[in-house]
């Protein structure tokens, strides 16, 4: 899948399709003649139609899950036809048909369908028609994205398979504006796989003291899941700039959680005038990317596939995109230690958004430099029981110019220590018990 991701349109190349079409037609003529010599033309038809239906359904499923057309668009039909007729080749070698040969695309049972080949013709045309319509919708969506000047939304699952992503240049990030109606003076950025819901308790605390708080869902996450096709730090920063411009934001305090810290320092680097102060909560500094990869991979099979960007991760995330509606309802019941909104939003992102966010931490992570040489007042909040971004990663010797506060809790400090985080944001550090003090 990594190869197809690098050349997403390769399976649809005109020359490739033409060559495959010629090979398919020529091979099928030979096969048809060989069956007809044995007075078994209807056998050819049955197995070809079954193979066509199977190829169409497999390719439709592939497109839905990976949002990328499968390789061998037409060759798959021939391959599956040869597979389906394998028992006939075995028969030529002296092996009669047996029930287990239904493993070859229902080789034995396929003939018993009521209506015979006419029924299979209807099924094959329906399946291939469905795939043709799906592929046409996918092409149309990618074409509209290209027309808007966007990169193609390859690999963005769910509804994005058939519907173009919104252009971040013209579509504002989804966000919550809490507290005072004046232009925002606090910006809260969520972490990887999160959404603005993670900051809701803190935003409520800040709103209570008349702060004007803006909490966006970053590109590709939460309610901004349908915006954009690229999700690198630069893309996130540009989208945030447009959001802040739209709200006439003055220099503000930017508080960020986890991966959002990387976005925050990238925003500060690109538009220094906008950022008055940084409050970085549980920043994944990841000084040694190999250690970080190993740490993430140790969290489970899917985490390992994800951090190594293996096709299985792409595939698993694609399946989750297809099942998103179900997961959004189920996760709040399964993750009882999280607020329902946070649990539901944990699947409101696509694989490319997640992958690009992870890459920004594991490759060219900007946090170390930003903390070693801060250009504006910066506070780092870590927690004693954080295994994702351990407090020990925040090197006190190297980061002498930032203020470091350690709280009791896990990685999700904005949820578990909302009052203390809000106090630190408004500059009332005296209300907070610092573990390190």
């Amino acid at each position, binding site marked *: 899948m990594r190869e197809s*991701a*690098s*050349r*997403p*349109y390769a399976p*649809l*190349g*005109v020359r490739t399709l033409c060559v495959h079409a010629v090979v398919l037609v020529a091979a099928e003529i030979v096969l*048809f003649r060989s069956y*007809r010599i*044995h*007075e*078994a*033309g*209807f056998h*050819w*038809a049955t197995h070809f*139609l079954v193979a*066509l239906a199977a190829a169409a359904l497999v390719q439709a499923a592939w497109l839905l899950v990976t949002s990328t057309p499968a390789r061998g668009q037409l060759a798959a039909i021939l391959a599956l036809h040869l597979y389906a007729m394998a*028992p*006939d080749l075995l*028969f*030529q070698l*002296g*092996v*009669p*048909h*047996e029930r287990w040969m239904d493993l070859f695309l229902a080789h*034995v049972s396929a*003939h*018993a*369908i009521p209506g*015979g*080949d*006419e029924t299979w*013709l209807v099924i*094959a*045309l329906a399946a*291939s*028609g469905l*795939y*043709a*319509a799906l*592929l*046409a*919708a996918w*092409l*149309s969506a*990618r*074409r509209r994205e*290209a*027309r808007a*000047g*966007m*990169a*193609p939304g*390859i690999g963005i699952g769910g509804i994005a398979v058939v519907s173009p992503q919104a252009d971040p240049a013209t579509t504002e990030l989804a966000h919550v504006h809490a507290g005072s109606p004046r232009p925002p003076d606090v910006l809260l950025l969520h972490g990887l796989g999160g959404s603005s819901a993670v900051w809701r308790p803190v935003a409520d605390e800040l709103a209570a003291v008349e702060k004007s708080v803006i909490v966006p869902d970053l590109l590709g996450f939460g309610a901004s899941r349908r915006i954009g096709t*690229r999700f690198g730090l630069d893309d996130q920063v540009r989208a945030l700039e447009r959001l802040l411009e739209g709200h006439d934001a003055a220099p503000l305090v930017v508080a960020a959680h986890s991966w959002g810290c990387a976005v925050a320092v990238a925003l500060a680097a690109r538009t220094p005038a906008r950022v008055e102060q940084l409050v970085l909560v549980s920043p994944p500094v990841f000084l040694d990317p190999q250690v970080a990869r190993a740490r993430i991979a140790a969290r489970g099979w899917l985490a390992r596939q994800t951090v190594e960007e293996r096709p299985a991760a792409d595939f698993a995330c694609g399946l989750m995109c297809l099942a998103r509606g179900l997961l959004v309802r189920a996760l709040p019941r399964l993750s009882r230690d999280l607020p329902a909104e946070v649990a539901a939003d944990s699947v409101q992102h696509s694989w490319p958004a997640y992958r690009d966010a992870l890459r920004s931490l594991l490759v060219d992570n900007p946090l170390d430099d930003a903390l070693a040489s801060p250009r504006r007042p910066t506070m780092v909040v870590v927690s004693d029981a954080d295994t994702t971004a351990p407090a020990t990663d925040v090197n006190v010797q190297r980061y002498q110019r930032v203020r470091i506060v350690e709280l009791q809790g896990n990685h999700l400090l904005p949820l578990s220590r909302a009052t203390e985080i809000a106090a630190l944001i408004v500059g009332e550090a005296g209300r907070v018990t610092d573990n390190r003090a």
Partner: protein
Amino acid sequence: MPDSTAQAAPPLPPWVPVAAWLAGAALLAYVVLAVVPAPGPLDDPDQADQRTGFLIPREDARRLPPISGGLRFGARPTLLLFDRRTPGRRPLQKIISELPRGTTMTLVLAGTKRAGLARLVGMPRPRDGGYPVGYAIVDRERLVRYVTLDPTYLEHGLEIATVVEAVE
């Protein structure tokens, strides 16, 4: 993702898959409905039951009496050829030459004393409702393991031999 794909429109316009499907559907419908031969009067009304290559399981097979239609069954596997008229000698000899050694082959013609064997072994009735043209295979236990209509059985010696060998 490399920059080569940035802002790249797909190589195909969206109407191409739909147009290709329409053309393919028309061609396929023509091939399946017009080019693939329709069953003839001597074929099985349900083509799925003709030349299945699938042996009847022992537990479902009919057992013939030791002597049926004047023939003795049980000593050897027996191939019963059913036809409406006497086939040519050479095609028959070709079939015999392809059969495994020790197989008994008997031609059962319509209108003869043995014609009742067709009903006894359960030969299907062809579309024209007349006497079946095809073959049946009876194993050493007198079980009828294979019956099929096959108007062109004379050309299918290898196919018949494969099934007889499987019965053995």
